[in-house]
Each structure stands twice: as structure tokens, then as C-alpha cells.
């Protein structure tokens, strides 16, 4: 048990180091912080709202992650397959699951770091007013889970192809679907044709439905279950895809 966890850590460590061995990681962090700043203060109207909350900050995360998370995760498996290191990795004493977890944890940690670097916005809102910091904490938790769900989807699409661009596009499409099926303009449109039960069922698959709870300061076990199910399912699909490639 100890040694299998150590293997996961070794893989995660290698993956994380490889992020920072190229300037791409730093470019990503800068872009992420610039965009969150822009959306929060300019597009989100942080000051005009006149309320001490980070609603305008978190509201944009599903859309921001839509592009940025696939960019972080697209290389996870496709690059290993393209360069042939997959053969090297999987003939070392590891199980497919250890490799998947190691890589997933590393890139999730990277995204968590990016998210953590947005701390000035928390300071700002605390200086300007007295926000409910509990709501901010759950907001961050929801945001992290959302990033994890997108990342797991990207992990899956990355295992499908040796082309990073293809992996990126497919994961953006899947994540877009996960947003839109619960996005109110879309669901409102759907209610004209479909029965409310159908619309609710489809909307239940949406990250938006489950993300919004966290922004209100509510940690609902169903929302947690949803995000962890998406992550679990996508990573399971990754293992199936990796195995099927090798079976030929």
C-alpha cells in the first residue's frame, strides 16, 4: 500500500516538474491571473455591484476553465503516446491506475496553485468591505472541483489521441456541453419543446447546476457526489481507453 502510493507520488512529482521545466507553465499562470482579473473587475463589474462578495469572480470560472483546463491537461497522455514514453512508463512496475492518478493529481495541483494565486482578490474584497469568508471558501472549493471535473474529461480525451490539439478540441466540446446543458438561457429555450422532467434531467448533468450551490455557500453532498462522479467516471474511461490501445 505504501509503495503503491509512493509510485503515484513519483509520477505526480515528475509530471509537476515537467510543467515547470518549460515557460508554458508560467505563461499559463500569468494568463490565468490576467483573465480572472479582467473578468472580475471589468466584465464582471466587481465595483459597480457594490457588494462585498466574490460572485463576479467565481461566475466566470466555468467559462475560463473551459479553455484553460484543457490547455493544461491536453498533453497528459497524448504527449506520452506521441513520444513513445508511454511504453516506458507502463513497463515500469506501475499499474495503469497509479499512472492515471499520478498524472491527474499533478495537473490538479497545478490548477490549484493557479487558483491559490488569485488570493489578492480575497484581500481586496476584505479590505473594501466585510464579505462572508465562508461563502468565499466554498466558492473556492466549488471552483477547484469544477477544474478537477474538466481536467478529468481532458485526461480522457488526451488518452484518445496522440494529437494534443485534437485532445484539446474534444475536451472543450465535452466541457461546453457540461456547461450548456444547465445554463439557464439554454434550459429556458429547451422548456419550449421538452417536458420539464427531461429538462431537469439534462440540467442535472450540468456543472453549472452543481457549481452554483457552492457560490451560495452551500456544500451539498449531491454536488460533491456529482463532481467526484464526473472525475471518477472520466478517469475510469481513461483507463479503459489506455487498455484498449494496448490490446490492439
Amino acid at each position, binding site marked *: 500500500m505504501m509503495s503503491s502510493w509512493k509510485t503515484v507520488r513519483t509520477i505526480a512529482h515528475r509530471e509537476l516538474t*515537467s510543467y515547470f521545466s518549460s515557460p508554458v507553465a508560467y505563461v499559463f499562470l500569468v494568463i490565468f491571473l490576467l483573465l480572472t482579473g479582467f473578468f472580475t473587475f471589468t466584465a464582471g463589474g466587481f465595483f459597480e455591484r457594490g457588494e462585498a462578495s466574490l460572485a463576479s469572480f467565481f461566475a466566470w470560472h466555468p467559462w475560463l476553465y473551459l479553455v484553460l483546463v484543457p490547455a493544461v491537461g491536453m498533453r497528459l497522455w497524448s504527449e506520452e503516446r506521441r513520444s513513445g514514453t508511454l511504453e516506458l512508463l507502463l*513497463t*515500469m512496475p506501475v499499474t495503469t491506475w497509479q499512472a492515471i492518478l499520478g498524472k491527474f493529481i499533478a495537473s490538479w495541483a497545478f490548477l490549484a496553485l493557479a487558483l491559490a494565486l488569485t488570493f489578492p482578490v480575497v484581500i481586496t474584497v476584505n479590505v473594501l468591505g466585510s464579505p462572508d469568508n465562508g461563502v468565499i471558501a466554498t466558492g473556492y472549493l466549488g471552483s477547484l472541483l469544477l477544474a478537477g471535473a474538466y481536467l478529468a474529461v481532458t485526461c480522457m480525451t488526451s488518452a484518445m489521441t496522440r494529437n494534443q490539439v485534437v485532445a484539446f478540441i474534444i475536451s472543450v466540446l465535452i466541457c461546453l456541453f457540461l456547461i450548456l446543458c444547465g445554463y439557464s438561457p439554454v434550459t429556458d429555450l429547451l422548456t419550449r419543446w421538452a417536458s420539464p422532467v427531461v429538462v431537469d434531467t439534462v440540467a442535472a448533468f450540468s456543472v453549472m447546476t452543481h457549481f452554483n450551490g457552492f457560490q451560495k455557500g452551500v456544500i451539498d453532498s449531491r454536488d460533491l457526489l456529482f463532481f467526484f462522479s464526473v472525475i471518477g467516471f472520466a478517469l475510469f474511461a481513461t483507463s479503459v481507453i489506455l487498455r484498449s490501445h494496448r490490446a490492439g
Partner: protein
Amino acid sequence: MIQIENLVKSFGPKRAVDGVTFNVERGEVLGFLGPNGAGKSTTMRMITGFIPPSEGKVAVGGYDVVESPLQVKRLIGYLPEAAPAYPDMTVHGFLAFAADMRGLTGEAKSRAIGRVVELCFLSSVLHQGIDTLSKGYKHRTCLAQALIHDPEVLVLDEPTDGLDPNQKHEVRNLIRDLGRSKAVVFSTHILEEVDAACTRAIIIDRGRIVANGTPAELRGMSALAGAVTVSGEGVKAEALASLGRVELVDGAYRVFPADKSAGGELAREVAALATREGWRLEALRTEEGQLDEVFRSITLPDTVKK
């Protein structure tokens, strides 16, 4: 150490490996020969547990590859074809990663890295990024990774591919030395490597084993083996014809014996004949047979294949 029984791998309707059976014991270096696409790499990938067999069994050190893959992978050091390595890492970082993955820590880890760096002549590029290395260095970095845990079984897919002649020579010697205490399987399509490093060779063609034996045995399969080449003043084909079939090759006569097993007997008979006839011989040689001729005669060239 390695037991392979009736191994089959199908990719769709194509049987890339079709009923391969062989064993490799400790102290053996098995050369795996065959034309491109014969199934060498596929067989090695099945031994190392990268792809599962469609049929048949692979056992390494008594462990079945499908049932206990981790035990098998711990025993094996593997150099995949084209020697992949993480381009964003340094040589040292990469070897440290391989050591971590093999469960080496602390003192044992740094000793292991030191040992393989010396074995594979990597000290001059130790802190260089792998993406900046020449092909030969990259190849040896991947080879070093395969040796880091001093494995009992080595599976090397074209270990000398892309190396210059000096490096080839070094790697062959390394393989031969390692083979004294380990079970080694390596694939190649360079026939001289079989003589240079192998204790045994298997020739595989279209997924099937077509020859299996020591390099000398394989050479013995050659039509040329046991023939005597003779040249000199006054040598006459008519007189030689009494000893066997005669051919004229590059100005020399080549006599093929009726019975191959006679060994050096034919050469003595030719010498005796020369003395009787008063020929002034310049050269008299018993042919050992050539591996490339054996290889060509038992494997069909690509151009013939459908």
C-alpha cells in the same frame, strides 16, 4: 527465466505473432532476428507486459505476465524500440525518476545512478536536457534506465540502432558481459551482432520462429557451410568434380561436399588431390557458412510478401 509458450498476438485479422515458443535461461544472450515487421517488437512488448497476448503464455521468473504484471515488471529492464525518454528532463533527472519508480532510495539510488552512468558513458551529459542530446546519447540514456535496478532479465529492442560503430561495439560488449549473470533478449537486424554478443539466436519471420540455435548451428544451415574454396595455378574443375559439385566463384573453385557432416575432411581431400596433380595452391579454405545467407534463404524479402 523467460518462458514463452505458443504466444499469439492478433491485430484484427493479422497475426503479428503466430505461435512463438522459446525459453531463455540465466546466463544466456538470445538474439532475436527477423526482417522488419516480423513480430520482434510485438513479442518483446508482450514479454514486458506492455501489450497483452491474444493467446498463449509468457512467464518471467515464474510469474505470469497477465496474472502478476507488477512482479514481472520488477524483474525486467526494458529498452523499447526507438529508445523513448522524457525530453524535458535532464539525464540525471530521468535516471533519478527511473530509480524512484524502481523503489530505489537514498544511498542505493545514488549508487545505482552512478553505476549506470559509468556503464553507458553518460557522465559528460549528466546535467544536459534529454532534448538536446544526440541520438546515440539519447539511446544510451534509455539503456541506462533499463539497467538502473540491476534487473535479472533484460529485454532490449534494437539496442544498437542509431549508434556509431564504436558505440555499437561498446554496447555489444556490455550486452555480452551482462549476459553472464542475467537472461538477456535483444532484437536486431544486424547479423554480425549475433556473432558478437549472442549465445543463441532465433530467427522469426511473419510471426513464426523459422530457426533457433547457436550462431554456429545457424551458420551450419547455410548451403555454403562445409564447402571448400580453392584457388591456385593449374587447378582444374574436372579433377575437383570427383569430390563433389563444383562452382566457379570470383576466379576460385568452390567444391560442395556430398555429406556436410564430414567437417574438415573435404579440405584434406582437396589438398591431397592438389599434391597428386601438382597444382600450385594459393588458397584453400573450408567455408563456415554465412548468417546473412541463412537469413535470406529462410525469410522472404519484403518485396515478395503480399
